[in-house]
């Protein structure tokens, strides 16, 4: 037998059986030496793994003390919840106005106002080439006075559940990890259908009529409206809605955000008993991973985020609320990045603005968090900009009863309630 080729030596080195080659090694010292040399060299390739592990660990944990808690598991569900609220709100905006007298549109608005609960299927779709693929799917539930439930579904199974309950602690369940976490009570005044009265006062007409669409046995009438008409905080996109002519209630809602996929809500069930939707008893034997209260005051992160947003957008997130996903998306777009709700591309990572925008997206989410869970907070991005040094941009109540205030020039201060009234002109 001839001496072993490099390919056969390689096969032996990675453990492939080759009895003939093994026999040859017994009789050929040169090939045996070549294999030994190769195996020795290869065995040293993992040497980079050796290092001062304790020092590295200490350094990492020290760095993490300045990092945000990463407990926002449901990035997309926040989009879904926000968009679902938006969709429902726009539905009323579309049909809640009209000429004098109870028009068909006004009847629809009225029908929506009478709804006490609903459930629907949700799908977040994204375009990949010529195909539209589902990025996230599940069931969304809403019940008066404004509590919501989101069940994320994968392969036909519910894998995560999030309950946000108005005025009461909620619950988050991860069926895959068999864990649960308690959530803070929901206080945001303008998140869901309880904002319908305000939205219904919008004036004007739908931007355009859409072709009728067959939904089951129903010929549904469709309309489209720009979502920004509801408020600057909703961002840029189009909402399309198809209505059941009999019940006047929506059959399909589509929200297509600029450059960030499409949310579809359908298979609505109206006024279903909701008493069991918000059971906050976690499954037996699941592990409690409830987050400790944030260790740090979020002021610093919020201010840093607003600075980055101002740098790229020239202003603060507009509107009365900061929807973290929407504001983050606007900032990313202004910085020439993709979407914060998608994995970063190589191009994104090479963008000098990537790191700061990524960190700022977290700060924006903190504003969202404060507004959602603090019973006494207010954001004035609609009227306060960078030149407004003495005006209150954002404030929230602290446990001690005082208020944290961030001004238009991003100075911060803790003030008493009386001083806050002066500042806000009350």
């Amino acid at each position, binding site marked *: 037998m001839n001496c072993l080729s*490099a*390919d056969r*030596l*390689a*096969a032996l*080195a*990675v*453990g*492939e059986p080759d009895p003939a080659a093994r026999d040859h090694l017994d009789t050929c010292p040169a090939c045996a030496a*070549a294999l030994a*040399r*190769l195996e*020795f*060299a*290869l065995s*040293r*390739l*993992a*040497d*980079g*793994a*050796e*290092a*001062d*592990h304790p*020092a*590295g*660990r200490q*350094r*990492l*944990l020290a*760095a*993490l*003390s300045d*990092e*945000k*808690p*990463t*407990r*926002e*598991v449901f*990035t997309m569900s926040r989009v879904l919840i926000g968009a679902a609220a938006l969709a429902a709100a726009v539905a009323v905006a579309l049909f809640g106005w009209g000429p004098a007298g109870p028009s068909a549109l006004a009847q629809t608005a009225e029908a929506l106002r009478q709804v006490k609960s609903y459930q629907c299927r949700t799908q977040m779709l994204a375009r990949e080439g010529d195909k539209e693929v589902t990025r996230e799917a599940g069931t969304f539930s809403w019940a008066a006075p404004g509590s919501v439930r989101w069940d994320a579904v994968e392969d036909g199974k519910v894998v995560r559940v999030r309950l946000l309950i108005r005025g009461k602690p909620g619950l988050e369940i*991860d069926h*895959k*990890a068999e*864990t649960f*976490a308690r959530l803070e009570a929901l206080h945001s005044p303008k998140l869901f259908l309880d904002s319908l009265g305000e939205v219904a006062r919008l004036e004007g007409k739908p931007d355009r009529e859409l072709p009728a669409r067959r939904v089951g046995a129903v010929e549904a009438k469709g309309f489209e409206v720009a979502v920004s008409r509801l408020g600057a905080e909703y961002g840029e996109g189009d909402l399309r809605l198809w209505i059941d002519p009999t019940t006047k209630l929506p059959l399909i809602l589509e929200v297509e955000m600029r450059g960030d996929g499409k949310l579809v809500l359908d298979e609505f069930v109206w006024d279903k008993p909701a008493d069991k939707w918000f059971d906050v008893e976690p499954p037996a034997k699941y*592990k409690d*991973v*409830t*987050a*400790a209260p*944030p*260790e740090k005051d979020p002021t610093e992160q919020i201010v840093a985020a607003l600075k980055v947003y101002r740098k790229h957008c020239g202003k603060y997130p507009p509107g009365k609320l900061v929807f973290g996903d929407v504001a983050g998306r606007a900032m990313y777009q202004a910085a020439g990045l993709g979407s914060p709700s998608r994995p970063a591309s*190589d191009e994104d*990572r*090479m963008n000098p603005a990537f790191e700061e925008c*990524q*960190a700022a997206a*977290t700060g924006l989410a903190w504003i969202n968090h404060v507004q959602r869970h603090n019973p006494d907070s207010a954001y004035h991005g609609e009227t306060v900009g960078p030149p407004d040094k003495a005006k209150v941009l954002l404030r929230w109540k602290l446990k001690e009863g005082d208020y944290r205030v961030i001004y238009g020039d991003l100075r911060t201060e803790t003030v008493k309630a009386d001083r806050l009234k002066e500042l806000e002109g009350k």
Partner: protein
Amino acid sequence: MGTDREPTDADLVARTRAGDREAFGLLYDRYARLVRVVAADAARDAATIQDLTQECFLRGFRQLATLREPERFRFWLVGIARQVVREHRRRRGHEPLVGEVAGPDQGEPADDADEIDHVLRRVAELPEDERLAVRLFYLAGRDADETAGLLGVSRSGVYVLLKRACARIARWLALPREVRP
């Protein structure tokens, strides 16, 4: 009321997401060695490898909310590490790592040290998937299934990469020293 069960990666990810940073420290204990091996693909000096390892874990922490399958944490982390390495190599302008190759271990016989030095130089010039395949295969105790998972390829795909890379190295080693590239 604890359990004697060793926490899984998914347990530690969930605890980290819930704000327990020490849980992330435990993930570091498990996978720092793995990440260092990937980071060693970008540099040979210990300080740079440690810096890149730190960067990988920090990014992992920041992006933990995007991890869909916590039980696959190590595969996901290797993906981040590969990206960090690519960025580092790109910043360096695709230079070969020759200039950074560490000197031979003082305890090695001179011939062995030369051989290792030679192999490391040549490995740095292999295609990325081959480089990582051989590094991870030997780190994983020659476990092809684990290596396949870490690289995101099939078991047979791993063997293709390994054999191709090892054959190249075997050919280099077979050359007389004076004509080696």
